[in-house]
């Protein structure tokens, strides 16, 4: 089912599976199918499987795939392609839907006015459009528990800030290009911040330590602090 995938080295202890496509639901389905099949296969020496928009990385211990005459990469590539060829359809959606309460605008969303001007809408319209969609978590990365969400209305697309802020508060909800996401930790950042949530996306004491994962659905619910 995933036999068109290209597998290349990502250094000498990791490989990259390129599934092609783009940032869309079909490609996401293929990513989830690959991630699920590889996780279940539990190939020897594989200690990390990292899904992304159109690719999946597999980190492995080369010493565990030494075969006379072939490089460990060639051996594990063969095993990975085999798993992908036999992969079933993407499992049914994770079934989890999260409602994330967001305080939009004001001090919590210092870039809401900028996004409104850029998209030629009122701030209230931007909020309504942002909260109307149901988003899919396409991948987690950049920071612990940071969700790359698919499904942002193209009408809300706004370029990143010309220069990033030194510090964006944890829980900030932002837009960058055609992407929307939530900052789980206080970090520097270049996204346009339109609101903030008190929901904790990352908790090292929990297992797993992140609230969201691949395939979850997210809705933003406007709340007011007044």
């Amino acid at each position, binding site marked *: 089912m995933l036999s068109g995938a290209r597998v290349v080295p*990502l250094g*000498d202890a990791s490989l990259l599976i390129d599934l092609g496509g*783009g940032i869309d639901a079909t490609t996401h389905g293929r990513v989830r199918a690959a991630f699920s099949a590889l996780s279940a296969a539990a190939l020897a020496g594989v200690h990390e499987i990292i899904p*992304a928009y159109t690719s*999946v990385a597999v980190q492995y211990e080369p010493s565990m795939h030494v075969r006379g005459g072939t*490089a460990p*990469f060639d051996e594990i590539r063969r095993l990975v392609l085999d798993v992908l060829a036999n992969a079933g359809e993407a499992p049914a959606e994770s079934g989890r839907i999260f409602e994330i309460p967001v305080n939009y605008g004001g001090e919590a969303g210092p870039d809401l006015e900028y996004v409104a001007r850029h998209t030629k809408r009122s701030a209230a319209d931007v909020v309504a459009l942002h909260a109307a969609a149901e988003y899919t978590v396409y991948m*987690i990365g950049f920071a612990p528990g940071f969700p790359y969400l698919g499904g942002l209305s193209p009408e809300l697309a706004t370029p990143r800030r010309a220069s990033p802020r030194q510090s964006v508060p944890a829980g900030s909800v932002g837009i960058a290009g055609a992407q929307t996401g939530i900052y789980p930790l206080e970090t520097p950042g270049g996204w346009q911040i339109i609101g903030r949530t008190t929901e904790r996306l990352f908790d090292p004491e929990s297992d797993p*330590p992140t609230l969201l*994962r691949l395939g979850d659905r997210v809705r933003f619910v406007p709340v007011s602090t007044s």
Partner: protein
Amino acid sequence: MIRVARAGLLTTVQDTGRRGVQQHGLVAAGAMDSAAHRIANLLVGNAPAAATLECTMIGPILEFAGDALLAIAGADLGATLDDRKAPLWRPLVAHRGTVLAMSGPRSGCRAYVAIAGGIDVAPVLGSRATDLIACIGGLDGRKLRPDDTLGVGAPAELSERIRAAIDTAPGRARSAGRSLLPAYMSEPIVRVVRGPEHDRFSKTSCERLRDSAFEVTPQSNRMGIRLVGAALSLAGPYDLFSSPVTAGTIQVPPSGEPIVLMADHQTIGGYPRIANVISVDLPLLAQAPPGAHVRFREVSIAEAQSLYVARERDLRIFGDSLRFHYS
């Protein structure tokens, strides 16, 4: 137990890093020079995954509250034990009141202090490594501060045999031979394999990567070594979807100045990946200070992995030889 009299520039508890967490967006962290970290542990009879102290440039001053077996590996940061020069790459004995001090870098950047029993901090998500971005692991998720105290785990039986052997006869101490160490040099030549976007770069850029020297800038840190030199550029416009990266990935932002990702690298990157440093040469970059010049040499994946497997075997044999020597 150890008291931190002076913390040094950036001293953190590290081990071999956090596994299985990158899919959640957490960095692996761990020792920048994993070879020095592991050899230091082997020298004192620790498992390779035991936690050590990674000392950066200006090292700490530590006071020992009791007897301990330790080893220092990696950079020469001017280490002394009770004001006497402390040799690297061999086990040493400290007693109650012994002071380990580091004056400043003579060569390299990062020194590892391994103590028999390992640094005793609570593991977080399976590792004792300090994650300075998520602020977890190590000692309260941060670098050491003055007046911190560090516990040490119970030493293994092998460690006790080593300590007993060298306390009475220091000449019995077994050190790590030169051939076991990475090929540290002040102007390192670092081997790389091609990255996923290598062929998207201009022919000139690919040649520049191989033929020119790049300088390590002061903006380099545990997340990545930022280099400056001949600018690298793509052959044509190319929209790269955010994609996984790994330690050693050489990514090229629009500025053309390559960044080599290291221990605290973010899990996903958006810049094209021209090449990837091979695992056995990452220690060379970990020890390259700002101002050092780095050159790259391309090797095949087969050669890179042959070197990887050989290093694992050499470290295993070294561990076995120590067990035999002190038996």
